[in-house]
């Protein structure tokens, strides 16, 4: 049986509150907080990017996996904010971990589902017997245009998973993908900020694909919502995961353990994967988890995991995701945030 | 070995010399030294320059300067040990004359630093640190000395006020030196309230960016005697190295290269620290003077902070230090500094130091340091 043998998350220390952003643009903070269920979001420092967060999350995953990095056969980084337009993030990650040179490396991009794409491929290669261990990271330092609704949610974080066949923390019971061509959110080459289709990002996009993938995988696995202890949906804001959960027949209590977005923001490729790390942190042997990502453009990957006994010894070999989220925070004013995110025009 | 003496010295006003190029600054200064010596030709020359390449984009300055000084085809060499380049020029000239290979040698130093922006100057100076393992991490020169200062304060209880007093003393001396870049006095308060550069060091703890040159003519002592001029002999020369990276040292508050170079110079001169009447030290930052005095054996290890506080290093004190104003007030055109120290010691030993003259000065010492202490030259001079 294949599955997760190590996992880890990373969250930058900086935060900005919804009120602080709303103040600058004259927006109504309480309505954002109610409407989107967002309170604050993480912000990367100038010295943090998708690569650095991937390295830290992957190091935590290695601490839980207890394997020799040289035995990792694949290193995948999924992100829509790879620091280079041309030159892989994965090579830096593989080199920093000491996994080179006999390793397959690739960068994925599929809006917010690039992380689960990497997971899908790494897991599949392990299943195929091509590699002993596969590492997949979902990470982003997303940018929302100043004043745009996305600015309240676009956040930074990373989650890493190592897949293997032995010493599993969670068995991979089923996987499934659901995809159509739906241009609800995009960023053209050479553009700094993404564009989106407003309410078009809802029903025909997020809801259609998540529901399609969730139903598809449950059908494939012969399972129903009540068979799961936990479910994680992509979290572009606080409200969508609960709404889609309700539409599918899940209860709030199944969603809440992996629901980080109100304090974290939307970490794009890291979003549902970080929900999974937070869920694994509190899960017990035998419990079943459904994760459904969503990436604009558009599609969803879905996995069913069953937690094993090893969770009890692996859980505290690295920091828990909720601890990273709740501790050691540093709140920024909008000016410093704008400086950190390079939103200020400077002389050459 | 022949006895070697300094027969002439030259220095022009230092500062931001917007109208003058590197070659002009050098030639004006070298001509002053030649006039002072009473010679119009030399056998060879050494030029100390830390980074003419980064500051003015000009390498190969040894030949250029020999040419513009009207001395081609004499041999001319540029030498570099970061901010100790001037001291090295003196040592090599000393060895050449002592060996009998040449009689009249020009030793000089020059740096033209204001043709680049502050950022570029910071970068150029930073290149004296380990670029891959110090500079890579964003450390600057003030930063390296700040690391030393913080450690010294922690280990020996050296105070912020003691650091400030070094600058106050050197500015007090510099106010009496018309060639100094900043010939005015400052107070402890003004140091403590000046802008932070690298905590705990503030701008008034730091030597400035300066354009300037200094030159000396050295020759066999016998030649000076025959000319009936004051005989200022070089009686000790020491040169030592240490790790270029500060973090590689056993004790980051201790300047081993200075200790070793001083040991050599004292041995050659057959002198002890208490024989010395005045010292020019490399106070690129206030903390540097404190650590140097310890390594030279002028004060005990850890007690450098008290030297200025107890006023023993003031002009009227037991052992005046940096009567010229030091790097702090006189300025610090890096490659020229070591030779400018020679200029000051020679003027003092000749009794030509005016308002800042040390009474009965007979033996003087100069300590010139590169990087965070990775190179040091120490010279001892005696009036015959």
């Amino acid at each position, binding site marked *: 049986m294949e599955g997760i043998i190590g996992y880890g998350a990373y969250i930058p220390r900086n935060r900005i509150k919804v009120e602080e952003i709303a103040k600058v643009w004259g927006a109504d903070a309480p309505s954002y907080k109610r409407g989107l269920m967002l309170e604050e979001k993480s912000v990367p420092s*100038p*010295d943090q990017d998708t690569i650095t967060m991937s390295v*830290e999350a992957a190091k935590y995953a290695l601490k839980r996996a207890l394997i020799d990095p040289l035995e990792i056969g694949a290193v995948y980084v999924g992100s829509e904010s790879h620091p280079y337009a041309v030159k892989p993030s994965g090579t830096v990650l593989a080199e920093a971990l000491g996994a080179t040179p006999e390793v397959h490396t690739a960068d994925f991009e599929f809006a917010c589902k690039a992380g689960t794409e990497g997971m899908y491929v790494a897991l599949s290669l392990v299943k195929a017997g091509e590699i002993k261990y596969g590492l997949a990271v979902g990470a982003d330092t997303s940018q929302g245009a100043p004043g745009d609704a996305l600015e309240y949610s676009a956040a930074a974080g990373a989650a890493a998973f190592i897949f293997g066949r032995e010493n599993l923390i969670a068995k991979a019971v089923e996987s499934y993908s659901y995809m159509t061509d739906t241009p609800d959110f995009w960023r053209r080459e050479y553009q700094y900020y993404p564009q989106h289709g407003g309410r078009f990002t809802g029903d025909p996009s997020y809801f259609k694909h998540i529901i399609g993938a969730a139903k598809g995988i449950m059908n494939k696995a012969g399972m129903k919502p009540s068979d799961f202890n936990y479910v994680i949906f992509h979290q572009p804001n606080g409200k969508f995961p609960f709404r889609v959960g309700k539409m599918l027949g899940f209860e709030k209590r199944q969603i809440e353990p992996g629901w980080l977005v109100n304090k974290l923001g939307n970490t794009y490729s890291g979003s549902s994967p970080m929900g999974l790390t937070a869920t694994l942190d509190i899960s017990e042997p035998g419990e079943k988890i459904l994760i459904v990502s969503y990436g604009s453009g558009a599609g969803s990957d879905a996995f069913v995991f069953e937690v094993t006994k090893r969770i009890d010894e692996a859980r505290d070999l690295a920091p828990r995701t909720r601890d990273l989220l709740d501790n050691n925070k540093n709140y920024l004013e909008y000016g410093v945030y704008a400086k950190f995110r390079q939103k200020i025009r400077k002389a050459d | 070995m022949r006895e070697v003496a300094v027969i002439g010295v030259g220095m022009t006003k230092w500062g931001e010399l917007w109208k003058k190029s590197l070659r002009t600054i050098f030639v004006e200064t070298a001509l002053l030294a030649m006039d002072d010596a009473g010679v119009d030709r030399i056998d060879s020359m050494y030029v100390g320059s830390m980074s003419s390449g980064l500051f003015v984009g000009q390498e190969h300055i040894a030949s250029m300067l020999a040419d513009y000084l009207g001395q081609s085809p004499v041999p001319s060499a540029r030498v570099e040990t970061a901010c100790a380049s001037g001291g090295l020029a003196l040592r090599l000239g000393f060895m050449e004359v002592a060996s009998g290979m040449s009689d009249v040698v020009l030793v000089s130093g020059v740096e033209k630093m204001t043709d680049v922006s*502050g950022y*570029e100057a910071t*970068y150029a100076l930073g290149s004296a640190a380990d670029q891959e393992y110090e500079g*890579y991490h964003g450390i600057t020169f003030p*930063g390296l000395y700040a*690391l030393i200062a913080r450690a010294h304060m922690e280990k020996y209880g050296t105070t912020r006020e003691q650091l400030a007093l070094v600058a106050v003393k050197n500015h007090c001396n510099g106010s009496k030196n018309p060639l100094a870049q900043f010939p005015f006095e400052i107070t402890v308060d003004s140091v403590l309230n000046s802008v932070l550069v690298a*905590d705990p060091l503030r701008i008034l703890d730091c030597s400035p960016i300066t354009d300037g040159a200094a030159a000396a003519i050295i020759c066999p002592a016998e030649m000076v005697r025959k000319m009936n001029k004051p005989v200022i002999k070089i009686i000790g020369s020491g040169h030592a190295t240490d790790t270029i990276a500060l973090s590689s040292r056993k004790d980051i508050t201790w300047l081993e290269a200075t200790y070793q170079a001083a040991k050599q110079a004292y041995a050659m001169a057959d002198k002890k620290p208490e024989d010395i009447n005045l010292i020019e030290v490399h106070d690129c930052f206030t903390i540097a003077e404190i650590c140097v005095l310890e390594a030279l054996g002028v004060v005990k290890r850890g007690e450098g902070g008290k030297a200025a506080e107890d006023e023993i290093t003031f002009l009227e004190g037991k052992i005046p230090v940096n009567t010229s104003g030091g790097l702090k007030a006189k300025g610090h055109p890096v490659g020229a500094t070591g030779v400018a120290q020679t200029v000051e010691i020679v003027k003092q030993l000749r009794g030509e130091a005016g308002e800042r003259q040390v009474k009965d000065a007979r033996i003087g010492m100069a300590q010139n340091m590169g990087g965070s202490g990775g190179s040091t030259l120490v010279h001892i001079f005696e009036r015959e």
Partner: protein
Amino acid sequence: MTTPSRYWREIPQRYRLEANKCKNCEITFFPPRLICPQCKNRELEPIKLAETGKILTYTVIRVPPHQFVDQAPYAVGIIELDDGVKITAQVVDCDFEDLKIGQRVRIEFRKIFQEGESGILCYGYKFVPE
């Protein structure tokens, strides 16, 4: 602009803290050396440095070199790692007022600087409070 070779060849040290150790007197060198300055022995073996340590001394750089302008002010310290090796690096994710000599820190992988708007991104180690 320098060619990437200069950055690239230091990757084992900057990404993975690879050092070496004199087989005779057991002193560790970072970066690795070809000869032991202590005993002049030329047989040295590779070793990985500890990833935690304590602050020996520190400063806050307020006048930075141009590649670091966007990060200033930033703290730089000399860190004594738990294996005794001392290295110079930035200390981040801390409030400057809270920095102390003796403070425990651990390594994190960060971007050190970037070569202008179009050059390579340079990564390496920094320290954060433990």
